[in-house]
């Protein structure tokens, strides 16, 4: 204080201002700070809470418009009645100090008590209620994610673990086409870049790029302040109005930002978002193959059922081949008898031909026959001619001989007798004889007369010889002699 007054007292301020070294000023500031704020009570929300390996807690206290760094040494930490947590509204007692080396000032916390709901959280809660009242978080607005997105849009920082985690998980599950829209995810202007990403990806077709069918908006874990961009109204509205299904993946599982309510799906982590965005290809493949197998199985069963019932029905119907067999047999029989008939007609005709043909003499035979006839007639003609040329005497002698041979005298020679009546008639019948009748018997040697003793029982009796007469007719006498002979005995 005194030093300052001394500095301003000289009339020529410019020249009389004493020159401080940085260290002097810094040390002076430190003293001033520690003297003036050696013991303060301050109400604020805990933010950026982090407990170092040393056991010290580094944090900050904030309200809507200001932030003061705070530190709580290990020894004090162990005595605290509450566990410092992000977003907690607390009242801290302590002192202010600064390092001359950096000239940052900080509140060294000596005790801490709860102060109720954090103002920032209250503000967010109020904003959330307002947006919900507008219907931005309505479940009816939620769009279903495509099963297999062709193109995945990602709005996040192009560097860091987040994009790497997303790409890695996508690649594991289902290699996809990813379009990254780089955006700052914290700090001044981050909200505008995120909005630009969400809107830009929806209109990307205008630039000749494929429109994503799912968008992931992601950021890694951080303090509530770090994540504040995702609580900004413009970002929440852009997410709610996005026509492409949107997955939010901001911070860790316990962090909830307002974009999570507006998104179609909230993923606990960026890796979780990748898992939600794409299915596991191998699972899908086996699902498809399973469906294919079931398809075949179902049809096969259908066909088997049908063919079984067909067999059953056709059993009732009777075997058509059997019917056919019967008819075939009938046909065979008819055909056979037809063949037989035809053959018998043919053979009948053949027989007829043979018999007619048999009667039809071979002209050669006929000629032969006629030739033989001619020869025979020729021979006879020759014989006749020979006879014609024989001498009449010879012929006469011959005829005489013949006559002699045939005369009844010759018959008498063999012992036969001619019986004649008294009138000289040849008697040939026994009835013409009567007892005591005189008959003339002519023998070969001569004639004698005789009488008939009895006519029934013929008995040869001597009879007076009658006049001997030669036989008048050869044929007649031989004939009569035969019959009389028979009757005599």
């Amino acid at each position, binding site marked *: 204080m005194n030093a300052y007054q001394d500095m301003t007292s000289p009339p020529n301020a410019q020249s009389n201002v004493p020159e401080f070294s940085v260290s002097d000023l810094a040390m002076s500031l430190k003293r001033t700070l520690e003297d003036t704020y050696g013991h303060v009570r301050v109400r604020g929300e805990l933010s950026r809470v982090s407990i170092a390996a040393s056991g010290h807690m580094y944090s900050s206290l904030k309200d809507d418009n200001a932030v003061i760094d705070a530190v709580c040494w290990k020894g004090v930490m162990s005595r605290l009645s509450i566990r410092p947590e992000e977003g907690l509204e607390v009242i801290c007692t302590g002192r202010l100090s600064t390092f001359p080396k950096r000239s940052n000032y900080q509140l060294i916390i000596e005790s801490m008590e709860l102060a109720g709901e954090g103002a920032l959280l209250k503000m967010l809660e109020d904003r959330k209620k307002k947006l919900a009242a507008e219907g931005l978080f309505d479940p009816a607005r939620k769009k279903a994610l495509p099963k*297999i997105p062709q193109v995945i849009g990602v709005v996040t920082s192009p560097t860091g673990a987040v994009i790497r985690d997303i790409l890695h998980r996508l690649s594991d599950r289902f290699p996809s086409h990813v379009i990254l829209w780089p955006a700052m995810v914290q700090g001044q202007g981050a909200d505008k870049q995120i909005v630009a990403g969400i809107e*830009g990806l929806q209109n990307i077709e205008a630039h000749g*790029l494929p429109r994503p069918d799912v968008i992931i908006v992601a950021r890694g874990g951080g303090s509530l302040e770090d994540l504040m961009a995702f609580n900004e109204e413009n970002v929440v509205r852009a997410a709610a109005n996005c026509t492409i299904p949107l997955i939010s993946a901001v911070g860790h599982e316990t962090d909830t930002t307002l974009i999570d309510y507006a998104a179609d799906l909230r993923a606990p982590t960026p890796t979780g978002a990748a898992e939600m965005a794409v299915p596991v290809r191998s699972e899908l493949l086996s699902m498809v193959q399973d469906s294919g197998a079931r398809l075949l199985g179902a*049809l096969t069963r259908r066909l088997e059922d*049908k063919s079984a019932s067909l067999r059953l029905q056709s059993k009732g119907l009777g075997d058509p081949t059997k019917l056919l067999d019967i008819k075939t047999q009938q046909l065979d029989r008819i055909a056979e008898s037809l063949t037989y008939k035809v053959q018998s007609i043919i053979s009948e005709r053949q027989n007829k031909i043979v018999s007619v043909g048999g009667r039809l003499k071979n002209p050669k035979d006929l000629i032969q026959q006629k030739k033989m006839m001619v020869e025979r007639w020729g021979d006879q003609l020759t014989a006749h001619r020979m006879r014609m040329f024989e001498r009449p005497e010879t012929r006469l002698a011959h005829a005489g001989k013949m006559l002699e041979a045939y005369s009844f005298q010759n018959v008498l020679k063999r012992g036969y007798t001619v019986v004649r009546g008294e009138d000289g008639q040849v008697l040939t019948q026994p009835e013409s004889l009567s007892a005591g009748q005189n008959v003339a018997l002519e023998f070969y040697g001569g004639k004698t007369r005789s009488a008939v003793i009895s006519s029934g029982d013929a008995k040869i009796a001597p009879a007076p010889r009658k006049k001997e007469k030669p036989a008048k007719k050869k044929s007649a006498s031989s004939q009569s002699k035969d019959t009389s002979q028979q009757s005599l005995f």
Partner: protein
Amino acid sequence: MTSAPKPIEDMTFEAALGELETIVRALETGQAPLEESISSYERGVALRKQCEEKLREAREKIEKITIDPNGAIKAEPLDAE
């Protein structure tokens, strides 16, 4: 099954798989006439092929958007880190 069957080549994976599952269920319940069963089987086989095709088509491609000073948006391969 479907009154106006869509050309299978134009179908998305989900649509093809969905119809395939519908066909499988219908066939398994066995209500449809046999001729219909056979034609839906044939369609099912084609759908399965389409699904497998879609799954096979998947290729990894990572692009990063760049916006040049005059506002033109381009995509370039993202360097794998």
